[in-house]
């Protein structure tokens, strides 16, 4: 005979004195009155208390929005696309910031123009699109690879872990810039778009190593927690335990490291583009704009300074934001 079933639509009433004790009731009443704060809300409050982080957040948001919408807004205002080259054969095609072709003050080109007379502000904003995209997509690639790799390695442990981590060690030992340069020149794409995609892949595949190590370390300490044992004891499969139970618990450090990866990837991208390996014309990034600017730095310094400053501000803000997030998500770290 099957054991008595609590399933078939009937609620089993237990003696009321067993249902909930006094202490339980008290704490549950408190639960009603004091609205519990979630981890996210708590971290958000701590983040807002950090002035530098808020500054970073605001600047990054502004630059991101301007990069996405800016070129179109400028196009509406001036009626020119960012790659519009003035046809009039003026002797000097590059104007300093806020200068009209005749030398008087003008709002027309707040960042001046480049060698061919294109508006530098529009170009910088458009370059920002590429730079931010490279940073974010390469970070996402590293996030997916790094988190899965680290989590699997840490959870399985033993020989699998040793082998997987030795692979990471070997890859670490290879100077990654050289690896990226080799990748980029080996699979040199014919189109500019192809080159950008190649850049995403190349930067993503080398930047997951640290992420994998961080996640592995987290998983090593998490997998011995009782809730993992409890999940195993209820028959949950290994992949599900790794990705549904453990990985969400590593989110804090992962988010922090990811925000700090974005600026470092962007810097690498700029560096590669500056050397001519990265983004190719007609596409532009902050790195390739700076590379063009440096050729005439003696005569037209704004061609280097404007995209350079924009990039520096963005990277600095991202770093502030990352530091703030670390403090907000990991309050214990801060006291150390």
């Amino acid at each position, binding site marked *: 005979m099957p*054991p*008595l*079933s*609590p*399933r078939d639509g009937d*609620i*089993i009433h*237990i*003696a009321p004195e*067993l*249902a*909930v*004790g*006094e*202490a*339980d*009731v008290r*704490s*549950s009443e408190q*639960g009603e009155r004091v609205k*519990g704060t*979630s981890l996210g809300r708590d971290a958000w409050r701590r983040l807002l208390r950090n002035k530098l982080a808020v500054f970073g957040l605001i600047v990054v948001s502004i630059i991101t929005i301007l990069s996405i919408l800016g070129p179109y807004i400028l196009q509406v205002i001036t009626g020119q696309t960012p790659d519009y080259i003035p046809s009039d054969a003026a002797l000097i095609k590059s104007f300093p910031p806020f200068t009209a072709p005749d030398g008087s003050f003008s709002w027309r080109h707040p960042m001046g123009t480049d060698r061919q007379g294109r508006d530098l502000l529009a170009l910088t904003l458009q370059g920002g699109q590429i730079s931010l995209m490279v940073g974010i997509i390469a970070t996402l690639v590293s996030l997916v690879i790094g988190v899965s790799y680290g989590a699997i390695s840490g959870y399985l442990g*033993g020989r699998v872990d040793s082998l997987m981590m030795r692979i990471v060690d070997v890859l670490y030992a290879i100077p990654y810039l050289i690896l990226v340069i080799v990748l980029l020149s080996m699979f040199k794409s014919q189109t500019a778009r192809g080159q950008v995609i190649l850049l995403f892949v190349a930067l993503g595949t080398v930047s997951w190593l640290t992420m994998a190590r961080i996640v592995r370390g987290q998983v090593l300490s998490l997998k011995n*927690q*009782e*809730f993992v*044992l*409890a*999940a*195993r*004891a*209820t*028959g*949950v*499969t290994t992949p599900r335990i790794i990705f*549904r*139970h453990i990985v*969400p*618990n590593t*989110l804090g450090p992962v988010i922090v490291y990811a925000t700090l990866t974005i600026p470092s990837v962007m810097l690498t991208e700029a560096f590669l583009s500056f050397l001519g390996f990265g983004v190719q014309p007609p596409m532009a990034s902050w790195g390739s704009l700076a590379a063009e600017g440096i050729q005439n730095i003696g005569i037209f310094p704004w061609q280097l300074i404007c995209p350079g400053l924009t990039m520096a501000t963005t990277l600095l803000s991202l770093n502030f934001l990352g530091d703030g997030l670390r403090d907000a998500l990991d309050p214990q770290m801060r006291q150390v």
Partner: protein
Amino acid sequence: MSTNGNLLDVRELRTYFDTVDGVVKAVDGVSFQLRRGETLGIVGESGSGKSVTNLSLLRLIPEPPGRIVSGEVIFQGRDILKLPEAEVRKIRGKRVGMIFQDPMTSLNPFMRISRQLMEITQLHLGHSKRQAYDHAVKMLEMVGIPDARVRIDRYPHEFSGGMRQRVMIAMALSCQPELLIADEPSTALDVTIQAQILELIKTLKEVTGTSVILITHDLGVVAGMTDQLIVMYAGKVFEQAPTTELFARPGNPYTRGLLRSVPDPLDQKGTLYQIPGQPPDVAHLPAGCPFAPRCERAEDICRREFPPFVQLNANHHSLCHFANEVYAESSQTSAA
């Protein structure tokens, strides 16, 4: 399906751990039977192998370093130790539910209670989301959590310790298992909640008809709840008897020591008896009886030879050279 009315038949179970210090024989030749609807208590000091025994039953020992060396765990006529992993997973949570010691850590802090409760029935009973949710609410009501429908979508940190243990019990009983293993379910809770939780387990056992294995180091807990009792020491079963018999007429010096160590509120002198010495290091056990160095009535033979497992009557066994003598003495004192 069952073998002579036994739900669970454990024979000569041995679980060893390979450590730098040598092989730790955490469980060394443990045998016991559990009949349908019965409650079995396992008592012993910390490190006596209680928990490892029960983790071994469901093959939840981390391998490496642990390994189940030999033995049989016959559950409903099938040897769990010989089943493929996928089959064992179907038993975990569905046929055997487990409750762990620390309710603070045995729930995943990143998952809502509802999701954790739903996971198990979706997995084992093939419930749809809707069904699983309703079932989860019903289970929470059954374990006496008020406003279950509201609370079910909370996170574990919004619950008190006692409520979390109730959630764990609800989770363990979701699929109506034939066997519930409770590994020190009340140790981490304060005394009033302890009593409630134990009372709840007792009631639910009667309502659902499941068998229970209750692991504890609190003799007071097992006294009122169990039918059979096993006393473990250094990975071995030292004494096995029906609970009333074991309390009245212990047949082992160790059990006698344990019973004498229970605080007696009526004792005016107020000195608490304790067994001298420390539990042995199971990696380096002495040749003879593992309890000999701490035993009051140890003689040369105890230090030389491993004691026999003496049968004192139909269902009372004791691992001691002088089991019969000790048993006779206890019979006298209890008669007097």
